[in-house]
């Protein structure tokens, strides 16, 4: 399953970070280059981490597909923050005057209408102060910040023109 492969990639990246010695300095340089060149999105980033099918199914049991202003909207199975749908944007639209972050974390959510699993990119919209509407938080698979790709506290606006967090969106980027 593609989601498993993606999760594997995330985990392998984490282990690479974990490995010590010379790779560490390599990664530091790599990270610097990525940040400087705004190529951050190729860093596999997943705030929720290895989201198992079982957990996605648990969310899908009470999820709905019609109202993206509610925390149980099907795409929000791994989201954290203020929902852009309540702020003048949508699940794949940043509110006026804000920028979608080129970096994102990824979850696998099941659409209860067709029973299919989809890859969701949780992109922060950046450049204005907190939207402050519709706060949602998912904790399943959430890890401390020393495993950053699995942590949901970070302002993921790396690579955006401005690092001020506004809201969180949830764009479909593929079918699993």
């Amino acid at each position, binding site marked *: 399953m593609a989601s498993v492969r993606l999760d594997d990639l995330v985990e392998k990246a984490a*282990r690479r970070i974990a490995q010590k010695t010379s790779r560490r300095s390599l990664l530091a340089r790599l990270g610097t280059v990525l940040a400087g060149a705004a190529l951050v999105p190729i860093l596999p980033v997943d705030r929720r981490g290895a989201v198992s099918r079982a957990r996605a199914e648990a969310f899908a049991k009470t999820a709905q597909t019609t109202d993206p202003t509610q925390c149980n909207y099907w795409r929000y199975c791994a989201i954290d923050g203020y929902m852009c749908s309540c702020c003048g944007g949508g699940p794949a639209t940043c509110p006026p005057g804000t920028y979608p972050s080129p970096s994102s974390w990824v979850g696998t959510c099941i659409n209860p209408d067709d029973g299919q699993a989809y890859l969701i990119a949780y992109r922060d919209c950046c450049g204005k102060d907190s939207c402050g509407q519709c706060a949602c938080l998912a904790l399943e698979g959430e890890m401390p910040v020393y495993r950053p790709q699995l942590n949901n506290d970070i302002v993921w606006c790396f690579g955006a023109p*401005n690092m001020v967090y506004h809201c969180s969106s949830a764009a479909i980027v593929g079918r699993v």
Partner: protein
Amino acid sequence: MSVRIAAEAVGAAVLVALLAGPLEAQERGIEGLPGEAVLEVEEEHTTAVLGEASPHWLYVLDPVFPHLIASKVYVVDGDSRRILGMLNTGYVPNMALSADGGAIYVAETYWSRGTRGERVDVITYYDGRTLEPVGETVLPRGRFLVVPKKPNLALTTDGRYLLSFNMDPATTVSVVDVRELRYVTDIEVPGCSLVFPTGPRSFSMLCPDGSFVDVAFEPDGRATVRDQEPFFDSEADPVFEHGVVSTADGRAFFVTYEGKVYEARPEDGRMRVVGEWSLLGRADRAESWRPGGWQLLAYHAPTDRLFVLVHRGGRWTHKQAGEEVWVFDANARRRIARIPLEHHAITLSVSQDEAPLLFALSEEASVTVIDATTYEVRGVVEGIGDSPFLTYVIGE
């Protein structure tokens, strides 16, 4: 008579009457009036200056989630349960206190036009008595923008150097000399996060494979990085970010999602894990008790007691507010008290004096003040900002 002159005449009359009123009252001797009814004729308007910091003062950091650019730090007196003052701070700030509370160090981020324009990351030095900014040191490599976590910023054990964790997303630690108000360097420690001081010029960090890495530096910025072997399973049971490191008695405690405790000794510039025990007994597990919250641990060094926020819940409830505080004798490694909380709490601090107060911060912006000897609730301070998240006391 023009209207203007008439108005001036009336104004003058009113002024005379205003001046005359209190004078007449004074001349009448104000007999029969209670003392508190008598106002000073000319009251001087002053600005308060705080006295020497009390161990019972609590510094409450509020990132103000709905308005992140408007964060604040409140100073609250645990004895009177009143707010003593406030600081304005920058975007998702972190703070640290000098040993006597005379200086408050805040790592903060600003943009020149509020939410846009040029970004600047600084350590700002605040006077602990006037709560005014008195200086700053720019952090040229920036700082980590994240929901504020205490171990993002720490002083070395002698209070000389401030260590600011940065992820951009490469990970470094910015070193600032707070005596000379001077940026020293950024130390690259790839992949590892947060800072836990281990000596006057050393600290440790947590790495994704479940290990500490030990870092030592020289005043000129040269650094050595020493790896350790993993001591916990970062896949199955990670330690919470908010461990406690007591400079006073050289002990540190890290707790895992599943309630395991790792005790470490910060010594010789290393964080050496020396013991492992569990917060939870079989009966506790059967009732689904587990640690959780945000700043979920506090340690009282004079009596070797560890305070932990716990709640009942399943896996992945690790940020849920605590229903109770459990108190552990860190030497006997056993629970000695349970304190139920009317206001469930995410963050704990305990004062480091001989008559300690325990402070439990709720998600509803209240602080429950508890006598940390008898475990009786002394009172609740409500309405401290919007979404306070971290608390600090002096001498931690």
